């Protein structure tokens, strides 16, 4: 592991616990090798019900727990429901919690485990992938590992992504998406069997990265890492999500789109997704406790939407989406841009049509496969 990563992790973690059943696993051995001074005797901490306090949540980002996962690794993305259009996505959770610290992160209302958990029995996840691929769903399945943990945030330690790439390389009906806000890609650039892997970045204007996405790589670093991945043969993706309203949003999002369009060719980027700031109402308290109450996210004008989440006014969302899409299309009509977790009404007011009928997006929104 390179020195830059090591220093980053040494600053980020306070303690590392290894569950007795994970002793001897490859990932536990790597944690022990790189951070011997952080290893603490395993303690089975009683878990309280309900949301964590802000202090507990802060601590959970610094305390690593390596343990086996007892449940199912492979799941359907919760994004598709009666209120939002689904893009046929599946998730493979190889851990939970993230050591980055975004003010809007939904994990604040989702997790109640006081650790950043890394699963040690990754071979079980590979078995599940084999089973799903062999059973098939009649179409291509996009599998992402970045739902409850940053796909690459700890990857230089765990090396999970390379294992999964090597595995899905054997199956034509599986595609992998690694989603990150880091620039930790050096260890992936020389992987031989990449399979159909897309490495994607959640991006935002630098101003938003600085004010709301604490501890993450700068936008310039993310784009630099993305460029390195394109050069080494990966497909890449961008998620401009969450789009956050702020006084200079037009200038800042224009600059972001222009940067992307100048560096990358649409053929290297199968898709760009857009999503506006949204979160469960109960999450707002911990956000206000943990971050500046006057920040863009905490002072945002959000209202309860049909699916229960707090969102910007529907017209403002459409206005922001249209603006960003138009900016991309000014550079090239070939950019494929879709809306993430948005209602059919927003699709209509943004694109004038439903996702399955938008040029270039038909295949993403074909009838949902199920496992």
């Amino acid at each position, binding site marked *: 592991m390179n020195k830059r990563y090591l220093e980053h992790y040494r600053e980020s973690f306070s303690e590392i616990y290894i569950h007795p059943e994970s002793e001897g696993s490859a990932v536990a051995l790597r944690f022990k090798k790189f951070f011997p001074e952080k290893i603490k005797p395993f303690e089975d901490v009683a878990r*309280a019900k*309900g949301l964590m306090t802000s202090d507990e949540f802060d601590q959970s980002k610094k305390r690593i727990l390596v343990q086996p996962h007892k449940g199912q690794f492979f799941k359907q993305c919760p994004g598709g429901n009666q209120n939002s259009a689904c893009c046929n996505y599946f998730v493979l959770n190889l851990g939970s919690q993230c050591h980055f610290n975004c003010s809007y992160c939904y994990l604040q209302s989702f997790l109640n485990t006081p650790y950043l958990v890394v699963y040690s029995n990754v071979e079980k996840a590979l078995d599940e992938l084999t089973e799903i691929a062999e059973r098939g769903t009649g179409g291509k399945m996009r599998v992402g590992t970045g739902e409850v943990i940053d796909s690459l945030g700890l990857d230089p330690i765990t090396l999970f992504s390379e294992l999964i790439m090597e595995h899905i390389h054997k199956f034509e009906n599986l595609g992998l998406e690694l989603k990150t806000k880091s620039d930790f890609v050096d260890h992936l650039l020389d992987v031989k069997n990449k399979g159909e892997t897309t490495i994607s970045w959640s991006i935002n204007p630098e101003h938003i990265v600085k004010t709301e996405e604490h501890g993450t790589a700068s936008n310039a670093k993310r784009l630099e890492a993305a460029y390195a991945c394109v050069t080494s043969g990966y497909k890449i993706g961008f998620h401009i999500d969450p789009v956050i*309203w702020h006084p200079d949003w037009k200038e800042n999002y224009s600059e972001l789109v222009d940067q992307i369009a100048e560096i990358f060719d649409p053929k290297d980027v199968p898709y760009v997704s857009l999503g506006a700031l949204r979160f469960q109402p109960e999450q707002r308290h911990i956000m206000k406790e943990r971050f500046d*109450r006057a920040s863009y996210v905490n002072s945002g004008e959000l*209202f309860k*939407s049909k699916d229960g989440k707090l969102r910007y006014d529907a017209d403002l969302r459409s*206005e922001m989406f249209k603006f960003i899409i138009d900016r991309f299309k000014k550079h090239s009509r070939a950019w494929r841009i879709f809306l993430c977790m948005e209602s059919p009404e927003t699709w209509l007011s943004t694109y004038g049509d439903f996702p399955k009928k938008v040029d270039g997006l038909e295949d993403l929104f074909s009838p949902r496969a199920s496992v």
Partner: protein
Amino acid sequence: MSIQISGLNGLLPKTNCRFTWRELTLTDTNWASQKSYDLSADLSLERAVAVLSEGLSFCEKLSLAEAAASLTTNTNTNTNSHTFDQRLFFKESNYTRFDLIEQIKNLSKELPEDFLRWCALKKLNLKDFRAFLNDYKKNNDSVFFSKLSDLDPTKNTGLQIIEVYFDLCAQKKVSPEDLLSFKNAETLLASLKKKRFSMTLSKDQIIFDELSKIKVAAGVKASLKRNGDKKQIKLELEADSPEQLKEKLQKSLERADSFEKAWNIKSGASK
């Protein structure tokens, strides 16, 4: 002699009669003439508190637990080695986040008593305090909380006022003195929301005004209504007969372009 509870004095839970545990007052009553019942003959302190706490709100439980805990800290009292474990008590009451309870306990010692009474009366629970737990500043905000208690809002309105008020304080858009003239909680909430959601609501108001100007026909009124994250045009139409209804619907349809124009009017609010 009965033990006085510092900070939460006067806020002991109200029951039909006064209950004590030896010299310690555990609950209060509205009836001065009511007799006190000493539970110590039949119940341990822990058991007495557990029995009394059934059906109490979070704030009342907090006062009761503080009262019971004071027995062991009061050096003038012969405690006979009695202890009361607050952590265990709250855990058994299904409040597992004791760190949060500790923070609320500390906060409650600084909050005005009239506001604490309101909290107890409206049965606020643990999570309701999270709206302002980290933002309370004694010198300024006690004025706000006293004002809020005076207005005696419903629980829902009161919690909304608290949250919006602290949001606006962080944005430096309000001070406690701004609130003193309000005589009604609903009006106060509407005024605070107007500031908190100023960009969206001012745009709504512009569209509302434009829609109100559209002359359709007598007895037809168009306005704007907010439904969560969406705006809706509300068309009110009165007709004395099916013929009149047809005519008014027809005229409304002819104004469809005007409605659309009003809806899309640029306010410049979103820059």
